[in-house]
């Protein structure tokens, strides 16, 4: 078992013990026993080759799927046994996906409002908040545009704004720069780091790009459904001194 890096000083947000996930009745094994602790405020990158199970791990953390075996908790509460998984996804978690996953028939400002339907904001408050979020990431000139009218980088910015809609305490990003050119990828990473620095939320970022992973404070490497290393990034360790 790999010793977890002790970077975050806050409470344990996620904890997995011998976490396993298989599909097709056990024919396909995605996770073979993952032990991991993620603390409040950490910025963790999960890196590994395609098929190593990193996206599956992210889906389990976000309660988009259920584990086959093992323990998976969020602030001490079993995620698979949550009485209201939708509320968990709505209030606690923000997702950022590689393919943006924006609704094509809704404008930018409408896409950002979509998660807010589960909150208690009025229509006007929802719009005001969405506009505010989009302004904060420099998309105020794109409010009424459809996703198809935006560049890849802009679409991902909209997705980031949407992930922040309900003020989550955790952001889960699955290859957020995977579909972007290098320039846009750089800008998105800067934005993500800036958000983390400003908001202090816990961030788990899945990537197969080592350069992107190195930007995080902690890097968890995976291979064949297992964690193979868990270490503090050099620049972070240096910065800490």
């Amino acid at each position, binding site marked *: 078992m790999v010793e977890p890096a002790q970077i975050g000083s806050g409470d344990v947000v996620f904890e997995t013990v011998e976490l396993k996930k298989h599909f097709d009745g056990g024919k396909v094994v995605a996770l073979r026993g993952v032990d991991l602790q993620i603390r409040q405020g950490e910025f963790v990158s999960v890196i590994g080759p395609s098929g190593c199970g990193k996206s599956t791990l992210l889906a389990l953390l976000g309660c988009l799927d259920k584990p086959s075996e093992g323990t998976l908790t969020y602030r001490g509460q079993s995620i698979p046994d949550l009485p209201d998984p939708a509320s968990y996804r709505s209030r606690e978690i923000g*997702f950022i996906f590689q393919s943006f996953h924006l609704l094509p*028939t809704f404008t930018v400002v409408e896409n950002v409002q979509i998660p807010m339907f589960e909150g208690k904001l009025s229509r006007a408050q929802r719009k005001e908040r969405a506009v505010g979020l989009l302004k904060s990431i420099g998309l105020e000139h794109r409010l009424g545009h459809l996703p198809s009218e935006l560049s890849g980088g802009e679409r991902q910015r909209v997705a980031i704004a949407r992930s922040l809609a309900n003020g989550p305490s955790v952001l889960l990003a699955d290859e957020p720069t995977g579909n972007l050119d290098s320039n846009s990828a750089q800008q998105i990473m800067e934005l993500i780091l800036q958000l983390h620095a400003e908001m202090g939320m816990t961030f788990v970022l899945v990537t197969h790009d080592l350069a992107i992973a190195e930007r995080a404070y902690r890097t968890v490497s995976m291979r064949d459904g297992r964690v193979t290393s868990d270490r503090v990034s050099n620049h972070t360790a240096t910065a800490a001194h």
Partner: protein
Amino acid sequence: MTLFTVVVRGLLRRPVRTGLTLVGISIGIAAVVALVGLASGYEKSIGKHLDMMGVDVVVSNIRGGFLPKAFDASLQPRVAKLPRVAETTAVLMEMQSIEDAPMMMVSGREWGGFTWGNLNLISGRMPRDGKEHAVILGRMAAEVLRKKVGDTVQIEAEELPVVGIVDGRAVIENGAIMLSLQVLQEVTGNQGKINFIDVRVSTSSSKEDVSRLCEQIKEIFPEGRAMVASEVVSTSQGFRIARAMSWSTSLLAIIVGVLGVMNTMLMTVFERTHEIGILLAVGWKRWRIVYMVLCESALLGLFGGLVGVALGALGIWVLEETTGIRSLLEPDLSPKLLVTSVAIAVVVGVIGGVYPGWRSSRLSPNLALQA
């Protein structure tokens, strides 16, 4: 943006398919409006006809089709002698194809009877007596047949002159050809035959008296029936058939509508699996997804219902303008029927959306996102 915006956007995503589904529902609802409106109109017009004539009890044969089978006129004096009977009049009524009109009511009325009393002469004159071989036309019948006073109408083999045109204040009268009972019996070869005895009871009679009278008539006319005027329509075999046909056709149309909505919404859910996955991922509750699908299908039903009501009203207007039908029917497009039809359409929409909604709620967010 509200949930309504999301619902409308979902429907407008595939405008052609949504439009075709709307057309399907509309046709179904138009059928409901037209058929039930016509059946209800027929019911009301007969009720109005009896009311205008001041008929309290109607005696007729049990057997028969659209009109009861004819029986011997000798029954009339026996009925007239029963207690509480103030007045009786015999009628022979036939449905015949007259010239260009496919079906028209020909009403032979006992000369001097009270059924002549409610007719207001518009032009010409009434027959001089019960033996004059002449007819008078209701005003709609005159329009349909394009006849005026002085023209002739052929009934069976005989050309009968039109001596007058009348307003009977009920569609049955206005759409009918009226003549003396004796003349109609002669012309049609039904001497001594009638198919209705209209009875007026004495003014002091209670409901119980009228019911007792009906029982007494049944005793002297076992193969016949005596009905209080208000029950004539509901017990009429012809009307029962018409009402059953209109509702069964409507039911079929409704079933087709449900299947249409279900098909559309299932297609929508399948096509939008990925979007539903996004909604689940960003925290939408499953009931909200179901609610969204049901709202979409209900909205389809609502618009389909509104268009259908308009189409049904248009269809009835066309029928009203159609020669032959015009004189027989007075459609009843009551607000109750229109509201009920729209409500049926909404229910059709909701029922059609239940299964697709349930399917959408069963999706795994992770698998849906990968769709």
